[in-house]
């Protein structure tokens, strides 16, 4: 591990409406903008949008493949763009800095066109 190291990208399957329903149930976030098309349309969103936390969840899965979750000390995310059913997300990341005790890393979730959906920074305890 060194500053500049690029992690192996995590390629997720296409997001489906059913996945959003399943995620709503699993997470307890039942805001209908994620699951009920007419509600999301009347909210001016042009259809349902994925839960931001689902996309952050993809990033979290990637981090847990790159490192042991026991070493994860901080994980911050900014939600940048809406994600919709039909999109395919890839999570990529790298080490950007190090301190004596930690690796400072960043990750982003992008769609096939390269649009950044979420941007995360996270810190890993050095072993």
């Amino acid at each position, binding site marked *: 591990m060194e500053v500049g190291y690029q992690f192996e990208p995590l390629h*997720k*399957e296409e997001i489906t409406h059913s*996945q959003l329903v*399943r*995620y709503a*149930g*699993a*997470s*307890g*976030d039942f*805001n*209908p*903008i994620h699951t009920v098309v007419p*509600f999301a349309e*009347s*909210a*001016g969103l042009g259809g349902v949008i994925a*839960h*931001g*936390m*689902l996309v*952050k*969840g*993809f*990033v*979290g*899965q990637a*981090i*847990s493949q790159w490192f042991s*979750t*026991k070493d*994860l*000390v*901080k*994980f*911050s*995310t*900014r*939600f940048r763009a809406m994600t919709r059913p039909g999109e395919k997300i890839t999570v990529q990341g790298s080490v950007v800095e190090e301190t004596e005790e930690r690796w400072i890393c960043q990750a982003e979730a992008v769609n096939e066109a390269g649009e950044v959906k979420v941007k995360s920074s996270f810190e890993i305890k050095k072993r």
Partner: protein
Amino acid sequence: MSTGLQEKVGMKLDTYNFKIEKGKLKELALAIGDLREESLKGELVLPTFPTVVDFMGEETSTLEDLLGLNLQKVLHGEQEYEYLGEMKPGDDLTVTGVIENVYTKASMDFYIIKKEFVNQNGETVLISRSTIIERH
């Protein structure tokens, strides 16, 4: 900023308990599409599992009700977790929350909600900060 908003700073959320069950861990893994064996056995606490704890505390009163938010106008702006200790299946968490800050910017209201998760041994295992945005 309207005085109505400012009054919400410091408002405390209802304290609640949440037991980490393997079934909930597995359900989240399946929803995310994480099909690793450890995840499907409900043995891995995924980094975003705290969101489940956040929402399950809203069974009786939702954040939207408390803050008077319109669900059609609400967006999640940012989410930060600080992991201070280990969370494992079987742990019994006590969750407290407070509205840490509220401000208006670019015709949107921003609410910063801080939650602390304390386990059955009295250790603070997680601090969560959510930025919830309500469009005007």
